[in-house]
């Protein structure tokens, strides 16, 4: 099975390992992630103003360049922007018209691309039961917590990823890899995101609260799907530290493709 793939800027730089392990794991799972040509930065932040068109154009280009019908994303932020832009495209005629007029594509985007986070591919296209069968190196005995952050979950109706108040997709993922998922109440909170730049204290409070809650509930390590969460969880933790990895690294480890 071939999927179009949108890695995003961070995965070419600070989060190279997320991309590397994703590709290795995908191969082990028998699917190919085919990078779409000439992709640009997703825009990083979904615009709050509904008449802001320009910052969503890059996402539209990515959606348009999806040859395989299904576009796979890895980074929570890219996923957030592209999925919401696709949602807008199919519901907001004004946005559709203005973006088309501006880009003047030979064939206008028909809105048919399906945006899938790699975790959704695993859950909905492969299935956790299938994943379990492919695990060669089960992570038995490890107590792993998921840090969802907010980008991948909210707004729940548009992202349609999981219940934003009580998500379980990453817990199911952890269980499929043979480890013990640990649920803790702050796993779906904001990590502090970009506020870390202007109010470090605020980000620290968010991170400390999450880590404190994770440790109190027995987590020994965390995984995330978001480079920004990764940054905050590592850089802005003042009281406790926990090892944090990308979910793809854990996946590669369980599938036995981490080295090489």
């Amino acid at each position: 099975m071939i999927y179009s793939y949108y890695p995003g800027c961070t995965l070419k730089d600070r989060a190279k390992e997320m991309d590397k392990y994703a590709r290795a794991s995908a191969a082990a799972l028998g699917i190919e992630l085919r990078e779409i040509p000439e992709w640009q930065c997703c825009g990083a932040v979904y615009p709050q103003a509904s008449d802001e068109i320009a910052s969503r154009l890059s996402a539209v280009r990515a959606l348009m360049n999806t040859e395989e019908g299904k576009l796979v994303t890895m980074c929570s932020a890219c996923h957030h922007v592209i999925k919401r832009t696709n949602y807008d495209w199919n519901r907001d005629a004004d946005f559709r018209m203005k973006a088309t007029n501006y880009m003047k594509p030979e064939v206008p985007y028909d809105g048919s691309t399906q945006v899938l986070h790699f975790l959704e591919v695993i859950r909905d296209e492969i299935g956790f039961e299938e994943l379990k069968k492919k695990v060669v190196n089960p992570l038995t005995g490890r107590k792993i917590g998921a840090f969802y952050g907010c980008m991948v979950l909210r707004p729940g109706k548009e992202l349609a990823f999981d219940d934003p108040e009580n998500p379980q997709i990453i817990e199911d993922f952890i269980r499929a890899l043979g480890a013990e998922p640990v649920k803790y109440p702050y796993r779906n909170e904001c990590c502090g995101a970009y506020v870390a730049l202007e109010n470090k204290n605020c980000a620290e409070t968010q991170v400390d609260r999450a880590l404190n809650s994770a440790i109190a509930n027995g987590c020994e390590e965390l995984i995330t799907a978001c480079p920004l969460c990764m940054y905050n969880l590592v850089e802005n933790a003042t009281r406790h530290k926990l090892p944090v990895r990308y979910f793809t690294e854990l996946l590669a480890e369980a599938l036995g493709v981490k080295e090489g």
Partner: protein
Amino acid sequence: MQKIGVFVCWCGSNIAGTVDVEAVSEAMKSVPGVVYSANYQYMCSAAGQKLIADAIHEHHLDGIVVASCSPRMHENTFRKTAEAAGLNPYMVEIANIREQCSWIHKDKEEGTAKAIVLARTAVAKLLHNKPLQAGTSAVTKRALVIGGGIAGIQTALDVADAGYEVDIVEQRPTIGGRMAQLDKTFPTLDCSACILTPKMVEASQNEKINIISYAKVEKVDGFVGNFKATIRKKARFVDETKCTGCSLCMSKCPSKKGKDEFNMEMNNRPAIYIPFAQAIPNVAVIDPEQCLKLKTGKCGLCEKVCTAGAINYKQQDELIEREYGAIVVATGFKPIDPSPLNEYGYADNADVITSLELERLMNAAGPTKGTLLRPSDLQHPHEIVFIQCVGSRCDENTKRGKPYCSKICCMYTAKHAMLIRDKYPDTKVHVFYIDVRTPGKNFDEFYRRAVEQYGVDYIKGMVGKVAKEGDKLMVRGSDLINNQQVEIAADLVVLATAIEPDPTARSIGTMLTASMDTNDFFTEAHAKLRPVESPTAGIFLSGVAQGPKDVPETVAQASAAAAKVIGLLAKDHLVTNPCVAYSNELLCNGCSQCEKVCPYGAITYIEKEVRGPGVREVRRIAQVNPAVCQGCGACTVTCPSGAMDLKGFANKQIMAEVDAICL
């Protein structure tokens, strides 16, 4: 050719604002059959009706069309006008040019054109009308009340007081309903049981009232004045006539794992139990899911200790068939399950409870004997957070709760907060709210007392998260007035959960063909003017089954429903609707399709000699009982041979209307 008069109403500016009424009445003059056409400001006024009556006399009219509001508003008015002027009342047709025309159009030209079509259509139908005579049917002078909460009890008491027999059918083993579970009632803080139980006793002692508890209405046939209901009285495995309610069996029963429904399942009860001390009937019931004797055949302890010999493990469900003139729906409500609203952590934390659970925790007959202890460790909570609008007032698109306001929560939360501050002054109480809604006699004064005298901390804003940290519940929310995030380390969190109709309401509504809204509340016949009647004749609404209400409103509505029931039962005969179905014997092929679709059981098949041109033979044909037929028309559209027709809405009339629209 008939002589038809057309009367176009302005309805002030309601119609005349978007329909050129002069043009409509002018256009009608050239419609075949119409000999007179006029317009008037308010056709329903005495002067308007006189205009109609005068025209009937002067022009010797055979029928009239009134182009005005919906027939639901004034069809009856104009039928009476016509009848008084010597016309058959069924020679009146209404063209609805208000609700279906002027109110939905903005463009006057369009509105006028459509009004002309609608009036023309009514004339086309009227040309095929035939005078009809209404019959009469008898009234069974007994009422059925479904639900034995305060609403059902009050309705039953009032109907019985007027001298009519009433049966209360209650699904639980005792009457009393939700009000029996309450500790205190706002805004007077009187003990709920103290004011409810005398009414329960009164109902049980009233010789006109028959309480059928632990039962459900399984089937209802018939129509207003003549309902026939089948009631299934579930086996309670205890002879009601023998049990004295001594409760000895309860103390001896070895199976104690049943969940105590009356205490919101916060403690256990034996397999044989009386729901609460003042239950009516005060008779034990055996829970067959928990009873060792019924499940394994071994035990029988209760039978041994029962001095009255009331235990009967072989008891079967009993079916009761009875006739009623009126039916009152008083099925009440239940609080929603807040588990799916994960941000409040109800499913994961024992110390996040609902308000009704708190009600039981504060009640002397509750699981903690009235001492406020939190469920997880039975410690006294020192900091309590109340969260309002849990599952109420939600955006319909999100599907995360009810779109409506549950109405009672603001007041009961103020009550809880005040009672806790009064009894445990060392306890801090916070209330998160969207708005505080306290319209009602002495309601706002009550809420202000909670804030001003009892120091309850009201925070305007909603809660985004309840997370367990150690033995505290961290409640995070927004304070919109101070524009800041707040976090409170609470010992107990109480959710003011939305209320929803009892789960049985939908099936009862279907059984009675009583309409309901999308939230499963019963719809009233008119939102303002007929608030205690269902649009289905003979069905009346009492209490929360119709919409959220507090106790005083419920009691008021229950009495209002009773007044309507009494008004119906006081009649010896009802005038029946002459618009009923009839079958053309020559066309009927005896296929039975109509019999299958008739919701009222009005159609039977008979063997009859049919005579017609070239026909003389015995055939199996459909026959309609006009006393039972409600004129719904299901049979006429089902009949494959076109034998079935409806008086007043004949196929010929409908086709004439369609032709007139397509002209």
